[in-house]
């Protein structure tokens, strides 16, 4: 069984935010919730890089470890999903998550959180696949439809890759090799200072 993974090629991302928009549209996500976002490092300076980031579907997911009601589960494909019926909106998963993936609608008084919402790798939730209930709570279940996450599917520069981890890493490895010296390969500039970044 494939292990699903996201990979964003920072050499290719042009910060068009289409992945963010596509995600919001596909899953009909309410205002104020961002399952995916694009972060730009060194914005407007030499060496600017953009990265699209969402839930990374960790193997040892911190959200799962800290959830007081144990509402998370991981599918056979490594996708981390949760049940909104169980979630009590305590916010612990947000404190634990390294990537800021969990999002909360503001409901009721104080700054109180509603049921947590996050990227599902377009894999829905615990409800029956492709059911109305599932769509309302978790958005479209594209994996059940035999499709991959929309954010990556429609990325114009193919910076964002999603799917079987082996395939994704093969594609990225090929890119690194074909870019040659100074491809931005991890650690190049450190290993060979001044020899192309």
């Amino acid at each position, binding site marked *: 069984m494939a292990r699903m993974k996201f990979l964003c090629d920072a*050499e290719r991302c042009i*910060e068009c935010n289409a992945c*963010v928009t596509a995600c919001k549209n596909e899953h009909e996500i309410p205002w104020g919730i*961002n399952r995916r*976002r*694009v*972060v*730009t*490092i*060194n*914005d407007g300076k*030499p*060496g600017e*890089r953009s990265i699209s*980031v969402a839930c990374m579907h960790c193997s040892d997911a*911190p959200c799962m*470890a*800290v*959830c*007081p*009601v*144990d*509402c998370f589960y991981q599918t056979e494909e490594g996708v981390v999903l949760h*049940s909104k*019926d*169980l*979630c*009590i*909106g*305590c*916010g*612990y998963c*947000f*404190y*634990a*998550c*390294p*990537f*800021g993936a969990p999002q909360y609608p503001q409901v009721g008084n*104080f*700054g*109180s959180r509603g049921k947590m919402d996050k990227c599902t790798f377009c894999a829905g939730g615990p409800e029956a696949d492709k059911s109305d209930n599932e769509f309302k709570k978790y958005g479209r279940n594209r994996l059940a439809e035999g499709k991959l996450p929309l954010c990556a599917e429609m990325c114009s520069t193919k910076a964002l890759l999603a799917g079987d981890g082996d395939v994704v890493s093969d594609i990225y490895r090929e890119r690194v090799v074909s*870019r*040659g*010296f*100074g*491809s*931005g*390969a*991890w*650690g*190049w*500039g*450190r290993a*060979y*200072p*001044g*020899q*192309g*970044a």
Partner: protein
Amino acid sequence: MTAISRSKKLVVQLAVLVLIALGTSFALEIVDPQQAQAQSNVRPPANAVTSPVGGTVPGASSGNQSDSEMWRAVRKGIKGTVSIPDKKAGQLVQSEGDAWRAVKNGPIAKWGVIGLGGMVALLVLFYLIRGKITVDHGMSGRTMTRFADMERMGHWLLAVSFIVLAITGLNITYGKYFLLPVLGKAGFATIAGAGKWLHNYVAFAFMAGLVMILVMWIKENFPNKYDLEWLAKGGGMFVKGVHPPSKKFNAGQKILFWLVIWGGLGLSLTGIALLFPFQFGFPTGMEPIQQMQFATTWHAIIALVMTIVVIAHIYIGTVGMEGAYDAMGSGEVDENWAKEHHSVWAKEKAKSRGGRKSKAVPAE
């Protein structure tokens, strides 16, 4: 001829030697050692793209700075920019969450259980050895007012809210391990969800109770001359017939009071921060998310310490000591109990009552 030519040759040889010596030292001076090392270690292939100059980018796809440095900085939590309204989302990776998780699921959970279980075990042991602390001279049947209505109201507001908060709080921390397997996920989530709301609202009752007892009891809780003696004798709790003097509150009660006041203040501040997530910033220099993590951690530590101590307080105020519960129950304590446990206070109280009596005009 030979002599001249030989000497000429010698001069030329010397000159060459001097030149070589000069040249070598000159060359040694101008060659940068770092460059020499770089040349010897990493010599790029002939067709390699050489070092970029100025803003040029070789290969049209790479940058002109070390990417590994940038990614290391990203890993360590530098902030970028985002176009969404929540600018905090500019941080790509926050690793502190992992430390938070480790502390929460590790030492806090572990030592909390040890502390709670240890305190209960100690109290059971104490009860088995010492038994119920009785009034040595027996109940007199005459009572005196120890706590007025308002004092008892403040106490019970604080006490009931604390118990509700403690139970719902413990459920959030430990329910997953103890209650969830019994009730099942759906049942437990319902209870935990209700518990969260109860915790959020009852918190205000706790804060009100805290203010009430602070205002009413602070003047009687400053240290006085009886405290050291009381502490030295262990409050007379361990030996029958020993009753160190004390005023309205003994040293043990004072320690509890200040623990509740400071602990309650800490709980209230961190609790408000958690109740209104990311609304308040303390001037700590920490990222907002780190403040939230700090608030939950500190909230849990104070709450567990207070719960452990309050278990002992509940014990001594109910099953542990004869006549103690009346102080907070009806507010009327037995005179003999008061003389034994709060001798100075009882004397003063009796005197003031006597004083009042003397002022009264006797009936004809």
